[in-house]
């Protein structure tokens, strides 16, 4: 953090005093101003008074639970929310993200992971103008790409599961429709974290994606541009 910027304020909401202590201590050590409260009523008061930059919200809370509070904050364009929950299953994560959480972290998490997520959320907020909701899914040619579940639905409503590599690749295409993307660009955009991908790997993934996008209509959504790369040939929409 540069010195001229005010220190970001973090609000921790957790009913366990031990968790409140360790989180406040850890995040404070990394240069944030931290306030910790036990329930959502105290959270609302703290948000009104001190306008925190991020809320780290526990899922299971006495009184109003974390998910409901998260939904409420999202609807009223409140501060970004990182859900921190002992329910770390894929389904829980999806529910949290669909209800408007900016990120979802299972307990027990690595402290450095939490730090990284907090920074990422703050950065995203700074880059994207406030109030622009994050897209939950993208559509193209009857298909729907669910960005939270990382699933693809065919025009017939059939779920087509994607590997994370395929998902990243398709997302890169869908977010940049009708533009020629070189293999290098695609590698940068779609590389799964901490993996060493090669040009070949992109070609293999594209052929798998094409197969999964084949609904028998004969339309080719991902076209090869000889000597240059690939282009995604469809209108896309956000939802």
């Amino acid at each position, binding site marked *: 953090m540069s010195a001229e910027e005010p220190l970001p304020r973090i609000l921790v909401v957790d009913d366990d005093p031990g968790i409140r202590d360790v989180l406040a201590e850890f995040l404070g050590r990394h240069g944030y101003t931290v306030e910790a409260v036990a329930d959502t009523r105290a959270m609302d008061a703290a948000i009104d008074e001190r306008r925190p930059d991020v809320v780290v919200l526990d899922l299971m809370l006495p009184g109003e639970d974390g998910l409901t509070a998260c939904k409420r904050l999202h609807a009223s364009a409140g501060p970004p929310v990182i859900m921190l929950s002992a329910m770390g*299953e894929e389904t829980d994560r999806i529910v949290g993200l669909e209800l408007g959480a900016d990120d979802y972290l299972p307990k027990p*998490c690595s402290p450095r992971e939490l730090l990284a997520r907090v920074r990422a959320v703050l950065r995203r907020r700074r880059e994207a103008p406030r109030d622009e909701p994050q897209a939950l899914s993208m559509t193209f040619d009857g298909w729907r790409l669910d960005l939270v579940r990382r699933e693809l639905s065919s025009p017939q409503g059939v779920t*087509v*599961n994607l590997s994370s590599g395929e998902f990243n690749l398709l997302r890169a295409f869908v977010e940049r429709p009708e533009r020629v993307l070189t293999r290098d660009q695609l590698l940068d955009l779609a590389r799964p974290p901490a993996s060493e991908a090669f040009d070949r790997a992109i070609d293999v993934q594209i052929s798998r994606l094409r197969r999964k996008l084949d609904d028998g209509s004969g339309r080719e959504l991902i076209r090869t541009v000889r000597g240059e790369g690939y282009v995604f040939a469809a209108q896309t929409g956000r939802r």
Partner: protein
Amino acid sequence: MKAKMGRGGLPIFVQLLALAVMCLVSVQVVNLAAVLFLPDPPPEGYSIADAARALQGHPIMTQSGRKLVAVVTAAPPDLGLPPGAAPPRDPLDPVIAEALAQALDVPPERVRAAVDHSHAELYRTVDVTSSRNEMANHVREHTKLIIRMKQDDGPVPRVLTERHIALVMRDSALFPPFVAALQRPDGRWSVVTPPRPLLSAWHIRILATFLTSALLVVLLAWFAARLLARPIHAFAAAAQRLGADPHAPPLSSQGPAEVRTAVAAFNEMQEKLRRYVNDRTLMIASIAHDLRTPLTRLRFRVEASPPEVRDRAAADIEQMDGMISAALAYARGEGRTAERTPLDLAALVSSVVEDMKETGAAITFDPAPAVIIMGDALGLKRLVANLIDNAVKFGGEAHVSVAQAQDETIVRVDDPGPGLPQEELERVFDPFYRTDASRSAETGGFGLGLATARAIARAHGGEVRLANRPGGGLRAELVLPAPA
């Protein structure tokens, strides 16, 4: 249709009773009709003319539908008594013999005849006395004619001899079955004996009556059985659907009273089971939550320790968290409430394989055309991942394929490992059961992977099976029913 539903609502007891009564009544009706409307059985006997023609070598059908055939023998037939003997020879015998001789136009000594008393049942069918009365009438009627005929030729016979009677009787009168014999010019004998009673036309008519009743009863029973079985079939099918998806809506109460009672009991049991599973899931979830809170505190507290302590502590915490995750996953697999959506199973398996390959595992996958099923994508992903994980852990590598058979879809995960002893193939599905290999190796399992996989498969109406492959190694199969 409405009437049928109404009938379907009656207790099975009443329906069965009605069926039995209806069968009984219909059989009785058929029998009554047979008695009232079938003609009387024709007499079993035959006429002199018939016997004469048969003796001349022309087989002939009698009125009751039997065949008279002459057999050639060397000796005259044994008629039981020497010719001309005193009673108990039947008084009809000389009349028949005389009539035959006249009909065949041969001297009387070349002809033998005897009423066949051995066929008592046949003998009864022609009333000899009434025959004889009839004969007397005939004779009286015809005598005048004979007298007129004879007036010109010579003296009118005063006494009606056997010869006169025979003359009148030889064409049309029916005699009880008799044995007739004619000495042929070569000295041998042609013999006609009463045919054996096997199946007369009368018998056939009676049998037809029986068959009609039987057919009627079978038809009735078939129809009634279908009517009875329909609500039970529907119940069984609905119960099966419920087994495939424990969160399916309760069965609707239709059909006979007994089935309705069973449906109610079934629904109640289902509800209890669901509550029990939900309670247990909730319990495991809250234990997991309560364990994870102190683990989180611990994780943050060791962050300030020297790196080597911190990293090892972090690894321990991660392992404990893994156990909690496994327990939660198992509990959820048992008590899933996730919705089912149409999904492409081949794409799902492929995505799991690709993701697992990212970690460097040796996995091959045969690309397969889309297989659309109804399912819970997250659960099925975990299931397939568990199977592949086991194959990689214990077999070194995994070969995955998706095959679609007629009424089921099979996901196969083969590994080239040591396989499992026969007696372990089922036991490894028990929750928290671990093989020696799993216990000793650094595989880090908790004995819940296969239990979870099976729970998820069964929640989809399918099954997970393990088998040793003939060529060595283990084969894990996920079998899912084809969508209805």
